[in-house]
């Protein structure tokens, strides 16, 4: 029997044309667009009356610093904050989304949000996307059950720890925690240790830099210490003022009124009923 099956154009459904185009482009060596990544140092620890979170403030795109003073400690609930590392858009989107869900949940229940609720919402979203939502998080807060600190990895796994670090500077920061953390730190000692861990990331990891942000959460209150330390001021300012004298030379000015460009081609059919 001769082949009679004719390839009919598919009706409806999804179009995967762009997948083929993207595949062809990447085969020809056109790189996909780069994302803003927060090569980051973020940390958190539990102290005697709550949780302290810390973060650097550098955002990078490849080797270029694209934001020298960004905020990486995100609001989740009045008693819960979350540090984000990874692709900036993902950490921002996932924390915003979950904080909205928590707000609605609070309206619904009339109770303070719990850290495990935030944890479960975050991990189930990240697990669903199988690591493609590139958000590595340090989640901390104080709720009815006391202080809690968790780390959440992009694939959706979570850990519960007394001290935690994340991001490209996590190894530098963890070395500080592993040598100096102990149980029952006071608030001042805790802030000092968090700052030291963040600074270790700032100075030893190229993906981290600029300033130190700290957030202290205790039972019933929190302190967001934006730019708690500024260890990297500009090192040289010229006494001379620079001028930028060379302007783009205007060679010709011609203004074409837009209406002259409109060309009316025939008259359409008269609408009938």
């Amino acid at each position, binding site marked *: 029997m001769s082949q009679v099956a004719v390839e009919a154009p598919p009706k409806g459904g999804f179009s995967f044309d762009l997948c083929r185009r993207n595949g062809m482009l990447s085969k020809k060596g056109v790189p996909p667009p780069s994302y803003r990544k927060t090569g980051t140092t973020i940390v958190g620890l539990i102290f005697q009356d709550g949780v302290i979170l810390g973060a650097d403030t550098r955002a990078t795109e490849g080797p270029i610093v694209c934001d020298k003073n960004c905020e990486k400690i995100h609001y989740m609930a009045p008693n819960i904050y979350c540090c984000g590392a990874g692709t900036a858009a993902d950490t921002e989107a996932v924390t915003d989304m979950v904080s909205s869900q928590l707000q609605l949940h609070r309206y619904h229940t009339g109770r303070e949000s719990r850290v495990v609720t935030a944890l479960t919402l975050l*991990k*189930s979203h*990240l*697990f669903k996307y199988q*690591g493609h939502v*590139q958000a*590595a998080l340090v989640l901390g807060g104080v709720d009815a059950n006391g202080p809690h600190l968790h*780390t959440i*990895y*992009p*694939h*959706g*796994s*979570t*850990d519960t*720890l007394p001290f935690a670090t994340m991001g*490209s500077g*996590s*190894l530098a920061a963890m070395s500080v925690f592993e*040598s100096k953390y102990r149980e029952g730190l006071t608030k001042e000692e805790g802030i000092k240790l968090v700052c030291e861990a963040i600074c270790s990331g700032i100075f030893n990891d190229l993906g981290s830099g600029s300033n130190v942000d700290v957030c202290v959460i205790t039972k019933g209150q929190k302190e967001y210490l934006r730019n708690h330390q500024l260890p990297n001021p500009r090192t040289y300012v010229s006494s001379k003022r620079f001028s930028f004298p060379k302007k783009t030379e205007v060679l010709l000015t011609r203004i074409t009124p837009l209406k002259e460009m409109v060309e009316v081609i025939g008259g359409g059919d008269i609408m009938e009923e």
Partner: protein
Amino acid sequence: MDLGKVNLDAPHSMGTTIIGVTYNGGVVLGADSRTSTGVYVANRASDKITQLTDNVFVCRSGSAADSQIVSDYVRYFLHQHTIQLGQPATVKVAANLVRLLAYNNKNMLQTGMIVGGWDKYEGGKIYGVPLGGTIIEQPFSIGGSGSSYLYGFFDQAWKEGMTKDEAEQLVVKAVSLAIARDGASGGVVRTVIINSEGVTRNFYPGDKLPLWHEELEPHNSLLDILNSTSPEPMNI
């Protein structure tokens, strides 16, 4: 090794040693506490023995994310089941739920588990649920990367009708043996004992474990030695 190439993007996996052993009154579960991303130890004190119901626990190995999601679902289903039944779920039901999820989603999951617990019908039971979603009822089960060092040891050391203490000592010894040889296992040893009387959790710190062939005595961190005021700080 190039420390600049530490891959923190790698999914979290628990290169693990997990063990479940039956004894004459119940079961003993055991696990190490290392969770790693590539060569970096992301958590040195993790708890891989997760509670499913009052009387059933599960030891998790493989991808941390996958095994957490599976045990979260199973716990949820078992809670419903317990309410509907009006009595505790059996170990067999728990193990079959784990198997159901592991088998139906075998393309998505990279996790092997050991379910262990006690119920009034069958007493202490251990079920192994390895990678593809098979279920095997066993008198003892070992899993994770460290288990390859333990097959021979268990063939030799496991005995029918051990006492609780014998079984627990066997588990602690086996996990410490695996920690000594398997680079992906480490940290502390955690055990859970489940029998008709309830649940006992035990914790064996890494520096209190028995030392095996060519292992060195633990000593103070160099930082402690430098900070101490002894006359010869470098004389370790």
